[in-house]
């Protein structure tokens, strides 16, 4: 009970936060228990937010409350606990709906993350509506999760994958997009923000051009959801996919948003319990959306946690949070540009949160080890976007990615660590 009261108190405190101007980063950091630890005797500087963002106390406590007081299966029992679990789970769906401004909650399908969401659309929409000679359009900067499923579909159906190219700043060439769109195009699949480059893509422009040809658009929102104010109706995208763990919620949570009329005409994805209306040995009929796409017992605690993460984000001054992230990116970009031998990969005019770079003659994996030694967590590798690496002719990059709880002091520590890399290995 004490923990519950404490949580309610926490909820109340954060309701009142963010009313003032500016951004109180020190206070926000207190909401994230993980940030207080040391690594190799140094304070943790967590700059791997594009891989997984950290989880605030309110989310941890909400998940823990479910496990302590509500754990049971949803949509099944008439008993008290099942009712409570169901109402928390469906409550989280309502929160998602408002967060992304969907028309209806049933347009929000709970999935494990973007990978599952894209695969759901590939199976449910792609395998039903894409045939031989048809075309799927992706962009050159896609994460493998929004590329490989479409390659698999094209291989199965004898369809063709077309690619919107980008320039050397990492910006999509929209004229080339028009050139690949045609009457055989069945779907356009593009990321909102590139995880490897930080580019914010002009989704409204892309959906407008695709819709002119009658083609639906799927947006990979893994990086968009944590860093932009979302409005799927304004974007007018047909599908929008979110990973919870990149927006301060637990792993195993996520959302596929789809326009109801599209979701309704799609095939189911996984078959099993919950997604049926009636079952006989002769045939089964399927439940209405969203249940049609939620076979089996879902990650209840994680999805309720996602709802709590949305509460948390709503309790912040989101505009100030995003402005702070932007300031960090600009500050880090300026500082790292002054380090000799560093080349930034991804210099689009519209960028968010991601600073990827290479250093002459030094492998990113070696950079990552030295930064880790200084307590700085970054990602070194191909970022599940190998075609991006091929475009820039590098095997891998080092990527720092920021969240609203990072500080300028942390950027300074990161820059000093990069300088020491050159000292040791240059």
């Amino acid at each position: 009970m004490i923990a519950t009261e404490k949580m309610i108190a926490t909820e109340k405190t954060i309701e009142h936060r963010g009313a003032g101007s500016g951004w109180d980063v020190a206070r926000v950091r207190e909401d994230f228990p993980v940030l207080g630890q040391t690594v190799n005797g140094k304070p943790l500087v967590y700059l791997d937010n594009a891989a997984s963002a950290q989880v605030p106390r309110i989310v941890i406590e909400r998940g823990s409350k479910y496990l302590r007081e509500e754990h049971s299966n949803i949509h099944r029992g008439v008993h008290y606990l099942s009712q409570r679990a169901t109402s928390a789970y469906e409550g989280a769906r309502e929160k998602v709906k408002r967060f992304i401004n969907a028309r209806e909650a049933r347009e929000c399908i709970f999935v494990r993350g973007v990978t599952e969401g894209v695969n759901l659309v590939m199976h449910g929409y792609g395998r039903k509506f894409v045939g031989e000679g048809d075309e799927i359009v992706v962009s050159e900067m896609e994460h493998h999760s929004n590329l490989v499923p479409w390659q698999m579909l094209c291989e199965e159906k004898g369809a063709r994958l077309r690619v919107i190219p980008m320039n050397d700043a990492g910006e999509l060439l929209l004229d080339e997009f028009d050139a690949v769109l045609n009457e055989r195009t069945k779907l356009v699949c593009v990321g909102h923000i590139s995880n490897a480059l930080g580019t914010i893509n002009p989704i409204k422009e892309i959906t407008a051009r695709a819709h002119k040809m009658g083609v639906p658009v799927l947006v990979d929102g893994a990086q968009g959801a944590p860093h932009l104010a979302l409005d799927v109706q304004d974007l007018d995208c047909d599908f929008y996919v979110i990973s919870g763990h990149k927006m301060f919620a637990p792993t195993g949570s996520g959302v596929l948003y789809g326009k109801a009329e599209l979701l309704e005409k799609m095939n189911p994805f996984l078959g099993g319990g919950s997604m049926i209306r009636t079952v006989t040995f002769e045939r089964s009929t399927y439940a209405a959306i969203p249940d049609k796409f939620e076979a089996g017992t879902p990650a209840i605690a994680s999805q309720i946690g996602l709802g709590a993460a949305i509460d948390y984000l709503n309790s912040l001054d989101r505009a100030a949070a995003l402005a702070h992230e932007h300031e960090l990116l600009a500050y880090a970009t300026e500082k790292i540009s002054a380090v000799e031998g560093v080349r930034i990969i991804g210099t689009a005019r519209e960028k968010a949160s991601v600073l990827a770079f290479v250093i002459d003659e030094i492998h990113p994996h070696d950079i990552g080890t030295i930064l880790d030694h200084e307590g700085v967590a970054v990602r070194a590798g191909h970022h599940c976007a190998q075609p991006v690496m091929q475009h820039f002719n590098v095997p891998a990059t080092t990527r720092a990615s920021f969240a609203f709880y990072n500080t300028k002091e942390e950027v300074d520590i990161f820059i000093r660590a990069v300088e020491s890399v050159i000292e040791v290995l240059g």
Partner: protein
Amino acid sequence: MSEELRELFNEVVKDHEKKPRNFHRIETANRKSLGHNRTCGDMLVVYMQLEGEVVKDISFLGEGCSISKSSASMMTEALKGKTRQEAEAIFDKFHQMVIGKLDAETLPDQLGKLGKAFGNVHKFHARVPCASLPWHTMRAALEGEEMTSTEHVGPALPQPAASE
């Protein structure tokens, strides 16, 4: 910069990274194997000219970090002219060293230059697969296999004690 890091990225490692030895294809190779570490993307091909039981010639080509590249380079130097049995014995010793199972005091006697260069890798858990990749690839080539990977090589990371 800490002493530990300087020991990891020591002068021998840096020298072999910048000027890798036997960094070419052997046109007449009768064994060749591709090694790939999916976690970091390191990739190399080990070429081997095996005559009877003797590694007559060995070389490599590939893309990777300083640890994997220098490990590959020094491996080719250490194994050229060795018998299959000798190569396997050195492989075993090297493996024991990078997972921290060799006594540091007797290390130089057991592995010489390799011990000097890679004796500290075991302190950097994430780098054990880098140092191991060329060696596992070499052993695959020796055994006539064409592919191998080393994402999961190494000791389990010790878990910090629970603290409240």
